[in-house]
Protein backbone atom coordinates (compact mmCIF):
# COMPACT_ATOMS: atom_id res chain seq x y z
CA UNK A 1 0.00 0.00 0.00
CA UNK A 2 2.90 2.30 0.82
CA UNK A 3 4.50 1.41 -2.52
CA UNK A 4 1.24 2.28 -4.27
CA UNK A 5 1.08 5.59 -2.46
CA UNK A 6 4.65 6.47 -3.50
CA UNK A 7 3.81 5.41 -7.05
CA UNK A 8 0.78 7.71 -7.07
CA UNK A 9 2.89 10.58 -5.77
CA UNK A 10 4.95 10.38 -8.96
CA UNK A 11 2.00 11.81 -10.88
CA UNK A 12 1.77 14.98 -8.81
CA UNK A 13 3.66 17.15 -11.36
CA UNK A 14 1.07 16.27 -13.99
CA UNK A 15 -2.00 16.44 -11.77
CA UNK A 16 -1.17 19.74 -10.10
CA UNK A 17 1.61 21.44 -12.08
CA UNK A 18 1.07 24.76 -10.33
CA UNK A 19 1.94 23.40 -6.96
CA UNK A 20 5.17 21.72 -7.98
CA UNK A 21 7.41 24.34 -6.38
CA UNK A 22 5.44 23.97 -3.17
CA UNK A 23 5.79 20.19 -3.32
CA UNK A 24 9.56 20.41 -3.82
CA UNK A 25 10.00 22.75 -0.87
CA UNK A 26 7.70 20.60 1.19
CA UNK A 27 9.76 17.50 0.49
CA UNK A 28 13.12 19.19 0.94
CA UNK A 29 12.14 20.56 4.32
CA UNK A 30 10.67 17.17 5.24
CA UNK A 31 14.09 15.63 4.51
CA UNK A 32 15.91 18.23 6.62
CA UNK A 33 13.28 17.79 9.32
CA UNK A 34 13.92 14.06 9.24
CA UNK A 35 17.62 14.78 9.63
CA UNK A 36 16.90 16.93 12.67
CA UNK A 37 14.49 14.30 13.96
CA UNK A 38 17.14 11.58 14.19
CA UNK A 39 19.17 13.69 16.60
CA UNK A 40 16.47 15.83 18.21
CA UNK A 41 13.55 13.41 18.21
CA UNK A 42 15.18 10.03 18.70
CA UNK A 43 18.47 10.74 20.44
CA UNK A 44 16.94 13.57 22.47
CA UNK A 45 19.48 16.26 21.63
CA UNK A 46 17.50 19.19 20.27
CA UNK A 47 19.73 21.20 17.96
CA UNK A 48 19.02 24.91 17.63
CA UNK A 49 21.56 25.42 14.89
CA UNK A 50 20.89 22.62 12.46
CA UNK A 51 21.12 24.94 9.53
CA UNK A 52 24.91 24.73 9.95
CA UNK A 53 24.79 21.34 8.19
CA UNK A 54 22.34 22.52 5.58
CA UNK A 55 24.49 25.55 4.79
CA UNK A 56 27.71 23.55 4.82
CA UNK A 57 26.22 21.10 2.34
CA UNK A 58 24.97 23.89 0.10
CA UNK A 59 28.31 25.71 0.19
CA UNK A 60 30.52 22.64 -0.33
CA UNK A 61 28.82 21.49 -3.53
CA UNK A 62 28.39 25.02 -4.86
CA UNK A 63 31.99 26.07 -4.24
CA UNK A 64 33.26 22.80 -5.75
CA UNK A 65 31.14 23.43 -8.82
CA UNK A 66 31.89 27.14 -9.27
CA UNK A 67 35.58 27.04 -8.43
CA UNK A 68 36.66 23.64 -9.70
CA UNK A 69 33.92 22.67 -12.13
CA UNK A 70 33.13 19.54 -10.18
CA UNK A 71 29.65 18.22 -10.91
CA UNK A 72 27.11 18.66 -8.09
CA UNK A 73 26.46 14.94 -8.33
CA UNK A 74 29.94 14.42 -6.92
CA UNK A 75 29.45 17.58 -4.89
CA UNK A 76 26.47 16.09 -3.10
CA UNK A 77 28.62 13.20 -1.91
CA UNK A 78 31.31 15.62 -0.77
CA UNK A 79 28.60 17.71 0.93
CA UNK A 80 27.18 14.71 2.74
CA UNK A 81 30.63 13.64 3.83
CA UNK A 82 31.46 17.21 4.88
CA UNK A 83 28.25 17.38 6.90
CA UNK A 84 29.05 14.08 8.59
CA UNK A 85 32.59 15.17 9.46
CA UNK A 86 31.37 18.48 10.84
CA UNK A 87 28.65 16.68 12.77
CA UNK A 88 31.14 14.25 14.27
CA UNK A 89 33.47 17.11 15.16
CA UNK A 90 30.79 19.14 16.96
CA UNK A 91 29.24 16.00 18.41
CA UNK A 92 32.55 14.68 19.71
CA UNK A 93 33.24 17.99 21.43
CA UNK A 94 29.75 18.39 22.89
CA UNK A 95 29.05 14.82 23.95
CA UNK A 96 32.55 14.22 25.30
CA UNK A 97 31.83 16.99 27.77
CA UNK A 98 28.33 15.71 28.43
CA UNK A 99 26.39 18.66 27.06
CA UNK A 100 22.67 18.15 26.84
CA UNK A 101 19.36 20.02 26.91
CA UNK A 102 19.72 23.79 26.87
CA UNK A 103 23.52 23.59 26.80
CA UNK A 104 23.57 21.54 23.63
CA UNK A 105 20.94 23.83 22.10
CA UNK A 106 23.19 26.82 22.81
CA UNK A 107 26.39 25.27 21.50
CA UNK A 108 24.71 24.40 18.21
CA UNK A 109 23.37 27.93 18.02
CA UNK A 110 26.86 29.29 18.62
CA UNK A 111 28.51 27.08 16.00
CA UNK A 112 25.87 28.03 13.43
CA UNK A 113 26.34 31.71 14.25
CA UNK A 114 30.12 31.40 13.79
CA UNK A 115 29.64 29.80 10.37
CA UNK A 116 27.12 32.50 9.55
CA UNK A 117 29.56 35.29 10.38
CA UNK A 118 32.53 33.66 8.71
CA UNK A 119 30.57 33.05 5.49
CA UNK A 120 29.44 36.69 5.56
CA UNK A 121 32.99 37.91 5.83
CA UNK A 122 34.80 35.43 3.61
CA UNK A 123 35.08 36.92 0.14
CA UNK A 124 36.42 33.77 -1.52
CA UNK A 125 33.08 32.02 -1.04
CA UNK A 126 31.01 35.00 -2.09
CA UNK A 127 30.83 36.94 1.16
CA UNK A 128 27.54 38.62 1.99
CA UNK A 129 26.41 38.62 -1.65
CA UNK A 130 26.34 34.85 -1.75
CA UNK A 131 26.92 32.73 -4.84
CA UNK A 132 24.86 32.70 -7.99
CA UNK A 133 25.14 29.41 -9.87
CA UNK A 134 25.21 30.22 -13.61
CA UNK A 135 22.43 28.70 -15.67
CA UNK A 136 23.61 25.78 -17.75
CA UNK A 137 20.36 25.05 -19.54
CA UNK A 138 19.22 21.48 -19.46
CA UNK A 139 22.30 19.85 -18.02
CA UNK A 140 21.44 16.71 -16.06
CA UNK A 141 25.13 16.03 -15.46
CA UNK A 142 25.41 19.38 -13.66
CA UNK A 143 22.21 18.75 -11.70
CA UNK A 144 20.36 21.45 -13.59
CA UNK A 145 17.10 20.80 -15.36
CA UNK A 146 14.79 22.95 -17.40
CA UNK A 147 11.80 21.30 -15.85
CA UNK A 148 11.05 21.32 -12.17
CA UNK A 149 9.75 17.76 -12.42
CA UNK A 150 13.28 16.41 -12.11
CA UNK A 151 13.77 18.16 -8.79
CA UNK A 152 10.40 16.93 -7.71
CA UNK A 153 11.50 13.36 -8.23
CA UNK A 154 14.84 13.91 -6.52
CA UNK A 155 13.12 15.47 -3.52
CA UNK A 156 10.45 12.79 -3.45
CA UNK A 157 13.00 10.00 -3.41
CA UNK A 158 15.02 11.74 -0.76
CA UNK A 159 11.92 11.80 1.41
CA UNK A 160 11.26 8.14 0.71
CA UNK A 161 14.89 7.31 1.45
CA UNK A 162 15.08 9.27 4.68
CA UNK A 163 11.75 7.99 5.96
CA UNK A 164 12.81 4.42 5.14
CA UNK A 165 16.14 4.95 6.89
CA UNK A 166 14.47 6.17 10.06
CA UNK A 167 11.86 3.44 9.88
CA UNK A 168 14.63 0.85 9.71
CA UNK A 169 16.61 2.66 12.37
CA UNK A 170 13.72 2.36 14.81
CA UNK A 171 14.04 -1.40 14.53
CA UNK A 172 17.78 -1.65 15.12
CA UNK A 173 19.73 -1.81 18.35
CA UNK A 174 21.32 1.55 17.51
CA UNK A 175 17.86 3.09 17.25
CA UNK A 176 17.01 1.71 20.68
CA UNK A 177 20.25 3.14 22.06
CA UNK A 178 19.15 6.54 20.76
CA UNK A 179 15.89 6.23 22.67
CA UNK A 180 17.76 5.12 25.76
CA UNK A 181 19.94 8.24 25.57
CA UNK A 182 16.84 10.39 25.25
CA UNK A 183 14.79 8.82 28.00
CA UNK A 184 17.44 8.50 30.67
CA UNK A 185 21.00 9.27 29.77
CA UNK A 186 22.52 8.13 33.06
CA UNK A 187 20.50 4.95 33.32
CA UNK A 188 21.45 4.03 29.76
CA UNK A 189 25.08 4.58 30.62
CA UNK A 190 24.73 2.47 33.75
CA UNK A 191 23.25 -0.37 31.71
CA UNK A 192 26.30 -0.41 29.49
CA UNK A 193 25.02 1.61 26.54
CA UNK A 194 27.83 3.59 24.99
CA UNK A 195 25.86 6.84 24.97
CA UNK A 196 28.75 8.80 23.52
CA UNK A 197 28.97 6.52 20.50
CA UNK A 198 25.19 6.33 20.07
CA UNK A 199 24.79 10.10 20.10
CA UNK A 200 27.69 10.49 17.73
CA UNK A 201 26.07 8.10 15.25
CA UNK A 202 22.80 10.03 15.55
CA UNK A 203 24.67 13.28 14.96
CA UNK A 204 26.49 11.91 11.91
CA UNK A 205 23.34 10.55 10.27
CA UNK A 206 21.43 13.69 11.10
CA UNK A 207 24.12 16.01 9.76
CA UNK A 208 24.69 13.96 6.61
CA UNK A 209 21.03 13.95 5.60
CA UNK A 210 20.64 17.66 6.26
CA UNK A 211 23.78 18.51 4.28
CA UNK A 212 22.59 16.40 1.36
CA UNK A 213 19.36 18.38 1.25
CA UNK A 214 21.49 21.53 1.24
CA UNK A 215 23.08 20.62 -2.08
CA UNK A 216 19.75 19.91 -3.74
CA UNK A 217 18.35 23.16 -2.39
CA UNK A 218 21.29 25.12 -3.82
CA UNK A 219 20.95 23.45 -7.22
CA UNK A 220 17.21 23.99 -7.29
CA UNK A 221 17.28 27.70 -6.41
CA UNK A 222 20.69 28.30 -8.06
CA UNK A 223 21.48 30.89 -5.43
CA UNK A 224 22.77 30.70 -1.88
CA UNK A 225 23.73 33.40 0.57
CA UNK A 226 24.87 33.36 4.21
CA UNK A 227 21.68 34.77 5.70
CA UNK A 228 19.36 32.30 4.05
CA UNK A 229 21.44 29.15 4.55
CA UNK A 230 23.22 29.88 7.85
CA UNK A 231 20.72 32.23 9.52
CA UNK A 232 18.97 31.38 12.77
CA UNK A 233 15.66 31.51 10.94
CA UNK A 234 16.58 28.53 8.81
CA UNK A 235 17.41 26.51 11.91
CA UNK A 236 13.92 27.30 13.07
CA UNK A 237 12.46 26.25 9.71
CA UNK A 238 14.27 22.92 9.97
CA UNK A 239 13.34 22.09 13.54
CA UNK A 240 9.77 23.36 13.63
CA UNK A 241 8.41 20.75 11.21
CA UNK A 242 9.37 17.65 13.16
CA UNK A 243 8.28 19.31 16.41
CA UNK A 244 4.82 20.15 15.07
CA UNK A 245 4.46 16.83 13.28
CA UNK A 246 5.82 14.84 16.21
CA UNK A 247 9.46 14.55 17.15
CA UNK A 248 10.70 11.00 17.47
CA UNK A 249 8.17 9.57 15.03
CA UNK A 250 8.89 8.27 11.53
CA UNK A 251 6.29 10.39 9.77
CA UNK A 252 6.35 13.46 12.03
CA UNK A 253 8.69 15.62 9.92
CA UNK A 254 6.78 14.89 6.71
CA UNK A 255 3.45 15.62 8.36
CA UNK A 256 4.79 18.84 9.83
CA UNK A 257 6.13 19.91 6.47
CA UNK A 258 2.82 19.08 4.81
CA UNK A 259 1.14 21.61 7.06
CA UNK A 260 3.74 24.32 7.57
CA UNK A 261 5.30 24.63 4.12
CA UNK A 262 2.06 25.59 2.34
CA UNK A 263 1.27 27.96 5.20
CA UNK A 264 4.64 29.66 4.77
CA UNK A 265 4.62 29.76 0.98
CA UNK A 266 1.05 31.04 0.63
CA UNK A 267 1.37 33.61 3.40
CA UNK A 268 4.45 34.88 1.62
CA UNK A 269 2.51 35.18 -1.64
CA UNK A 270 -0.57 36.78 -0.16
CA UNK A 271 1.05 39.13 2.36
CA UNK A 272 4.05 40.13 0.32
CA UNK A 273 4.90 43.37 2.07
CA UNK A 274 4.45 41.68 5.42
CA UNK A 275 6.52 38.70 4.42
CA UNK A 276 7.47 37.88 7.99
CA UNK A 277 3.92 37.35 9.11
CA UNK A 278 3.90 33.62 8.42
CA UNK A 279 6.47 33.39 11.20
CA UNK A 280 3.84 34.80 13.53
CA UNK A 281 1.69 31.79 12.65
CA UNK A 282 4.68 29.52 13.17
CA UNK A 283 5.15 30.98 16.62
CA UNK A 284 1.50 30.65 17.50
CA UNK A 285 1.27 27.08 16.23
CA UNK A 286 4.46 26.14 18.05
CA UNK A 287 3.16 27.52 21.34
CA UNK A 288 -0.22 25.84 20.99
CA UNK A 289 1.27 22.51 19.98
CA UNK A 290 3.82 22.50 22.80
CA UNK A 291 1.19 23.28 25.42
CA UNK A 292 -1.63 21.09 24.18
CA UNK A 293 0.07 18.41 22.07
CA UNK A 294 3.54 17.93 23.54
CA UNK A 295 4.08 14.92 21.28
CA UNK A 296 3.02 16.72 18.12
CA UNK A 297 0.32 15.72 15.69
CA UNK A 298 1.54 12.13 15.49
CA UNK A 299 1.16 11.97 19.25
CA UNK A 300 -2.42 13.18 18.87
CA UNK A 301 -3.15 10.53 16.23
CA UNK A 302 -1.61 7.87 18.38
CA UNK A 303 -3.69 8.76 21.43
CA UNK A 304 -6.86 8.93 19.32
CA UNK A 305 -5.98 5.56 17.82
CA UNK A 306 -5.34 4.06 21.26
CA UNK A 307 -8.58 5.43 22.63
CA UNK A 308 -10.56 4.04 19.70
CA UNK A 309 -9.06 0.61 20.15
CA UNK A 310 -9.57 0.57 23.87
CA UNK A 311 -13.23 1.37 23.35
CA UNK A 312 -13.48 -1.46 20.85
CA UNK A 313 -12.43 -4.06 23.40
Amino acid at each position, binding site marked *: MIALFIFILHFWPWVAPNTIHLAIMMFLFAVMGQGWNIL*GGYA*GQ*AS*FGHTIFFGTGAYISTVLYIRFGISPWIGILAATLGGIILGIFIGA*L*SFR*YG*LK*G*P*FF*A*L*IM*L*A*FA*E*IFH*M*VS*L*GWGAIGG*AEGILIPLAGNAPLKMQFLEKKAFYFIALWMVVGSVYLVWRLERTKTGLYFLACREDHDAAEALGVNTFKAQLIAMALSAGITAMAGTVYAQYLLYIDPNSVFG*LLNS*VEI*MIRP*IIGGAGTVLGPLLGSLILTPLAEYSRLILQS*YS*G*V*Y*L*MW*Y*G*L*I*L*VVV*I*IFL*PNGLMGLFKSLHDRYHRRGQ
Partner: protein
Amino acid sequence: MDFTFVVQSLLNGLLIGGVYSLVAIGLTVIFGVMKIINFAHGALMMLGMYATYWIATLLQLNVYVAIVFVLPLLFLVGVLFQRFLISPIMNAPEHNQLFLTLGVMLFLQNMAVFLWTPDFRVLKTSYANINYYIGDISISLVHVLAFLMALLFSGLLYIILHKTDLGRAIRAASEEPVGAKLMGINIKRIYWITFGIGSACAGVAGTAITPFFPIYPYVGDIFVLTAYVVVVLGGMGSVFGAFVGGLIIGMADSIGAMILPGSMKSVLSFVIFIMILLFRPTGLFGRQNA
Protein backbone atom coordinates in the same frame (compact mmCIF):
# COMPACT_ATOMS: atom_id res chain seq x y z
CA MET B 1 46.31 51.33 15.57
CA ASP B 2 47.27 54.00 18.07
CA PHE B 3 46.73 54.02 21.77
CA THR B 4 43.82 56.47 21.82
CA PHE B 5 41.90 54.32 19.39
CA VAL B 6 42.35 51.23 21.55
CA VAL B 7 41.26 53.04 24.69
CA GLN B 8 38.31 54.55 22.84
CA SER B 9 37.13 51.14 21.62
CA LEU B 10 37.56 49.54 25.01
CA LEU B 11 35.59 52.35 26.63
CA ASN B 12 32.77 52.03 24.12
CA GLY B 13 32.82 48.28 24.66
CA LEU B 14 32.66 48.72 28.40
CA LEU B 15 29.70 51.11 28.21
CA ILE B 16 27.65 48.91 25.87
CA GLY B 17 28.78 45.94 27.96
CA GLY B 18 26.73 47.37 30.81
CA VAL B 19 23.62 46.94 28.68
CA TYR B 20 24.64 43.38 27.81
CA SER B 21 24.97 42.81 31.55
CA LEU B 22 21.44 43.95 32.28
CA VAL B 23 19.95 41.84 29.47
CA ALA B 24 21.99 38.87 30.65
CA ILE B 25 20.95 39.36 34.28
CA GLY B 26 17.33 39.05 33.19
CA LEU B 27 18.14 35.78 31.43
CA THR B 28 20.22 34.40 34.22
CA VAL B 29 17.65 35.10 36.93
CA ILE B 30 15.07 33.16 34.93
CA PHE B 31 17.52 30.36 34.27
CA GLY B 32 18.68 30.25 37.86
CA VAL B 33 15.20 29.79 39.25
CA MET B 34 13.34 27.88 36.56
CA LYS B 35 16.17 26.29 34.57
CA ILE B 36 14.69 27.71 31.39
CA ILE B 37 16.62 29.47 28.68
CA ASN B 38 14.25 32.12 27.49
CA PHE B 39 14.64 32.51 23.74
CA ALA B 40 11.98 35.20 23.77
CA HIS B 41 14.17 37.44 25.90
CA GLY B 42 15.34 39.48 22.92
CA ALA B 43 11.77 39.90 21.78
CA LEU B 44 10.86 41.22 25.22
CA MET B 45 13.70 43.71 24.94
CA MET B 46 12.36 44.73 21.55
CA LEU B 47 8.94 45.28 23.13
CA GLY B 48 10.61 47.48 25.71
CA MET B 49 12.23 49.52 22.95
CA TYR B 50 9.00 49.99 21.03
CA ALA B 51 7.15 50.87 24.22
CA THR B 52 9.78 53.49 24.97
CA TYR B 53 9.62 54.79 21.43
CA TRP B 54 5.84 55.16 21.45
CA ILE B 55 5.76 56.74 24.88
CA ALA B 56 8.46 59.19 23.85
CA THR B 57 6.86 60.13 20.54
CA LEU B 58 3.14 59.97 21.32
CA LEU B 59 3.19 61.33 24.85
CA GLN B 60 6.14 63.63 24.20
CA LEU B 61 7.83 62.35 27.33
CA ASN B 62 11.52 62.15 28.05
CA VAL B 63 12.94 58.74 27.15
CA TYR B 64 14.20 58.14 30.65
CA VAL B 65 10.81 58.95 32.16
CA ALA B 66 9.34 56.21 30.00
CA ILE B 67 10.99 53.72 32.34
CA VAL B 68 8.16 54.36 34.80
CA PHE B 69 5.79 52.76 32.30
CA VAL B 70 8.08 50.28 30.60
CA LEU B 71 9.24 48.57 33.77
CA PRO B 72 5.79 47.61 35.11
CA LEU B 73 4.56 46.82 31.60
CA LEU B 74 7.33 44.33 30.89
CA PHE B 75 7.03 42.94 34.41
CA LEU B 76 3.40 42.23 33.71
CA VAL B 77 4.17 40.68 30.33
CA GLY B 78 6.68 38.41 32.06
CA VAL B 79 4.22 37.37 34.74
CA LEU B 80 1.55 36.57 32.15
CA PHE B 81 4.09 34.68 30.06
CA GLN B 82 4.97 32.48 33.02
CA ARG B 83 1.40 32.18 34.30
CA PHE B 84 -0.27 31.14 31.06
CA LEU B 85 2.43 29.64 28.86
CA ILE B 86 5.26 28.22 30.89
CA SER B 87 3.44 27.08 34.04
CA PRO B 88 1.41 24.45 32.19
CA ILE B 89 4.57 22.80 30.88
CA MET B 90 6.90 23.22 33.85
CA ASN B 91 7.15 19.45 34.18
CA ALA B 92 7.50 18.66 30.47
CA PRO B 93 10.91 17.65 29.07
CA GLU B 94 13.19 20.67 29.15
CA HIS B 95 13.52 21.01 25.39
CA ASN B 96 9.76 21.59 25.18
CA GLN B 97 10.25 24.71 27.27
CA LEU B 98 12.93 25.88 24.86
CA PHE B 99 10.61 25.29 21.91
CA LEU B 100 7.85 27.20 23.65
CA THR B 101 9.96 30.28 24.30
CA LEU B 102 11.18 30.03 20.70
CA GLY B 103 7.55 30.07 19.58
CA VAL B 104 6.86 33.13 21.67
CA MET B 105 9.93 34.82 20.18
CA LEU B 106 8.71 34.15 16.63
CA PHE B 107 5.26 35.37 17.52
CA LEU B 108 6.32 38.59 19.21
CA GLN B 109 8.95 39.56 16.64
CA ASN B 110 6.65 39.07 13.72
CA MET B 111 3.73 40.62 15.48
CA ALA B 112 5.98 43.68 15.64
CA VAL B 113 6.63 43.37 11.90
CA PHE B 114 2.90 43.21 11.33
CA LEU B 115 1.96 46.07 13.63
CA TRP B 116 4.87 48.43 13.17
CA THR B 117 6.46 47.35 9.83
CA PRO B 118 10.02 46.01 9.60
CA ASP B 119 11.42 49.53 9.02
CA PHE B 120 14.13 50.94 11.24
CA ARG B 121 12.94 53.71 13.50
CA VAL B 122 15.21 56.20 15.16
CA LEU B 123 14.21 58.24 18.14
CA LYS B 124 15.54 61.74 17.70
CA THR B 125 16.46 63.52 20.89
CA SER B 126 18.24 66.79 21.52
CA TYR B 127 20.90 65.12 23.65
CA ALA B 128 21.77 62.11 21.48
CA ASN B 129 24.78 63.86 19.99
CA ILE B 130 26.28 65.32 23.12
CA ASN B 131 29.84 64.13 23.61
CA TYR B 132 32.37 64.90 26.29
CA TYR B 133 36.08 64.83 25.64
CA ILE B 134 38.93 63.68 27.83
CA GLY B 135 42.02 64.33 25.78
CA ASP B 136 41.27 62.74 22.42
CA ILE B 137 38.80 60.28 23.83
CA SER B 138 35.16 61.12 23.35
CA ILE B 139 32.43 59.92 25.67
CA SER B 140 28.86 59.94 24.47
CA LEU B 141 26.32 61.12 27.02
CA VAL B 142 23.63 58.60 26.05
CA HIS B 143 26.08 55.72 26.28
CA VAL B 144 27.08 56.81 29.77
CA LEU B 145 23.44 57.15 30.79
CA ALA B 146 22.68 53.68 29.44
CA PHE B 147 25.61 52.30 31.39
CA LEU B 148 24.54 54.06 34.58
CA MET B 149 20.99 52.82 34.17
CA ALA B 150 22.22 49.28 33.73
CA LEU B 151 24.41 49.68 36.79
CA LEU B 152 21.56 51.12 38.84
CA PHE B 153 19.07 48.40 37.98
CA SER B 154 21.57 45.58 38.33
CA GLY B 155 22.48 46.93 41.76
CA LEU B 156 18.84 47.29 42.69
CA LEU B 157 18.14 43.72 41.67
CA TYR B 158 21.15 42.51 43.61
CA ILE B 159 19.85 44.24 46.72
CA ILE B 160 16.36 42.84 46.20
CA LEU B 161 17.73 39.34 45.83
CA HIS B 162 20.01 39.52 48.83
CA LYS B 163 18.38 41.87 51.32
CA THR B 164 14.63 41.33 51.09
CA ASP B 165 12.37 38.44 52.02
CA LEU B 166 11.16 38.20 48.44
CA GLY B 167 14.76 37.89 47.26
CA ARG B 168 15.50 35.22 49.84
CA ALA B 169 12.42 33.32 48.71
CA ILE B 170 13.55 33.56 45.08
CA ARG B 171 17.01 32.30 45.93
CA ALA B 172 15.57 29.52 48.05
CA ALA B 173 13.31 28.46 45.18
CA SER B 174 16.30 28.44 42.89
CA GLU B 175 18.47 26.31 45.16
CA GLU B 176 15.96 23.93 46.71
CA PRO B 177 12.50 24.14 45.12
CA VAL B 178 11.10 21.31 47.21
CA GLY B 179 12.60 22.58 50.43
CA ALA B 180 11.35 26.08 49.70
CA LYS B 181 7.87 24.71 49.16
CA LEU B 182 8.00 22.90 52.49
CA MET B 183 8.98 26.14 54.17
CA GLY B 184 5.72 27.63 53.00
CA ILE B 185 7.00 29.56 50.01
CA ASN B 186 4.46 29.83 47.22
CA ILE B 187 6.68 28.51 44.44
CA LYS B 188 4.24 29.30 41.67
CA ARG B 189 4.07 32.91 42.73
CA ILE B 190 7.85 33.09 42.98
CA TYR B 191 8.06 31.79 39.43
CA TRP B 192 5.67 34.48 38.18
CA ILE B 193 7.61 37.20 39.93
CA THR B 194 10.96 35.88 38.77
CA PHE B 195 9.84 35.81 35.17
CA GLY B 196 8.44 39.29 35.63
CA ILE B 197 11.76 40.54 36.99
CA GLY B 198 13.65 38.86 34.17
CA SER B 199 11.58 40.46 31.45
CA ALA B 200 11.58 43.82 33.24
CA CYS B 201 15.39 43.72 32.99
CA ALA B 202 15.09 43.19 29.24
CA GLY B 203 12.59 46.04 29.02
CA VAL B 204 14.74 48.48 30.98
CA ALA B 205 17.76 47.55 28.87
CA GLY B 206 15.60 48.31 25.84
CA THR B 207 14.78 51.75 27.18
CA ALA B 208 18.41 52.41 27.99
CA ILE B 209 19.58 51.90 24.40
CA THR B 210 16.61 53.50 22.62
CA PRO B 211 18.22 56.97 22.40
CA PHE B 212 21.14 55.68 20.34
CA PHE B 213 20.03 52.44 18.75
CA PRO B 214 17.66 51.89 15.81
CA ILE B 215 14.40 50.19 16.74
CA TYR B 216 13.20 47.32 14.57
CA PRO B 217 11.46 43.99 15.18
CA TYR B 218 14.59 41.83 15.12
CA VAL B 219 16.78 44.19 17.17
CA GLY B 220 16.66 41.87 20.18
CA ASP B 221 18.56 39.13 18.34
CA ILE B 222 21.82 41.05 18.47
CA PHE B 223 21.66 41.62 22.18
CA VAL B 224 20.21 38.33 23.21
CA LEU B 225 22.75 36.21 21.34
CA THR B 226 25.43 38.14 23.14
CA ALA B 227 23.49 37.78 26.36
CA TYR B 228 23.63 33.98 26.07
CA VAL B 229 27.38 34.24 25.78
CA VAL B 230 27.45 36.48 28.85
CA VAL B 231 25.19 34.21 30.88
CA VAL B 232 27.31 31.17 30.13
CA LEU B 233 30.51 33.08 30.79
CA GLY B 234 29.31 34.37 34.14
CA GLY B 235 27.86 31.04 35.20
CA MET B 236 24.24 30.18 34.51
CA GLY B 237 22.13 31.64 37.29
CA SER B 238 24.75 33.95 38.74
CA VAL B 239 23.70 37.62 38.78
CA PHE B 240 27.13 38.90 39.72
CA GLY B 241 28.69 36.66 37.06
CA ALA B 242 26.32 37.99 34.42
CA PHE B 243 27.22 41.54 35.33
CA VAL B 244 30.97 41.06 35.09
CA GLY B 245 30.51 38.78 32.06
CA GLY B 246 28.61 41.55 30.27
CA LEU B 247 31.46 43.99 30.72
CA ILE B 248 34.03 41.40 29.58
CA ILE B 249 32.05 40.49 26.47
CA GLY B 250 31.40 44.14 25.68
CA MET B 251 35.14 44.73 25.60
CA ALA B 252 35.89 41.41 23.84
CA ASP B 253 33.49 42.51 21.10
CA SER B 254 35.28 45.79 20.62
CA ILE B 255 38.65 44.03 20.54
CA GLY B 256 37.13 41.65 17.97
CA ALA B 257 36.01 44.65 15.93
CA MET B 258 39.58 46.00 15.93
CA ILE B 259 41.30 42.84 14.74
CA LEU B 260 38.63 41.10 12.65
CA PRO B 261 36.71 42.32 9.58
CA GLY B 262 33.29 43.86 10.24
CA SER B 263 30.91 40.93 10.01
CA MET B 264 33.20 38.67 12.03
CA LYS B 265 33.61 40.88 15.06
CA SER B 266 31.50 38.66 17.28
CA VAL B 267 33.28 35.46 16.27
CA LEU B 268 35.65 36.02 19.15
CA SER B 269 32.91 36.10 21.75
CA PHE B 270 31.25 33.00 20.29
CA VAL B 271 34.54 31.13 20.43
CA ILE B 272 34.87 32.12 24.10
CA PHE B 273 31.30 30.93 24.53
CA ILE B 274 31.96 27.48 23.09
CA MET B 275 35.15 27.08 25.11
CA ILE B 276 33.31 27.97 28.33
CA LEU B 277 30.41 25.64 27.54
CA LEU B 278 32.82 22.79 26.97
CA PHE B 279 35.47 23.28 29.57
CA ARG B 280 33.82 25.23 32.32
CA PRO B 281 30.03 24.96 32.03
CA THR B 282 29.62 26.51 35.49
CA GLY B 283 31.13 29.72 34.14
CA LEU B 284 33.76 31.91 35.69
CA PHE B 285 31.75 32.68 38.79
CA GLY B 286 29.37 29.73 39.00
CA ARG B 287 29.21 27.24 41.80
CA GLN B 288 30.91 23.95 40.98
CA ASN B 289 27.83 21.89 41.77
CA ALA B 290 25.42 24.09 39.83
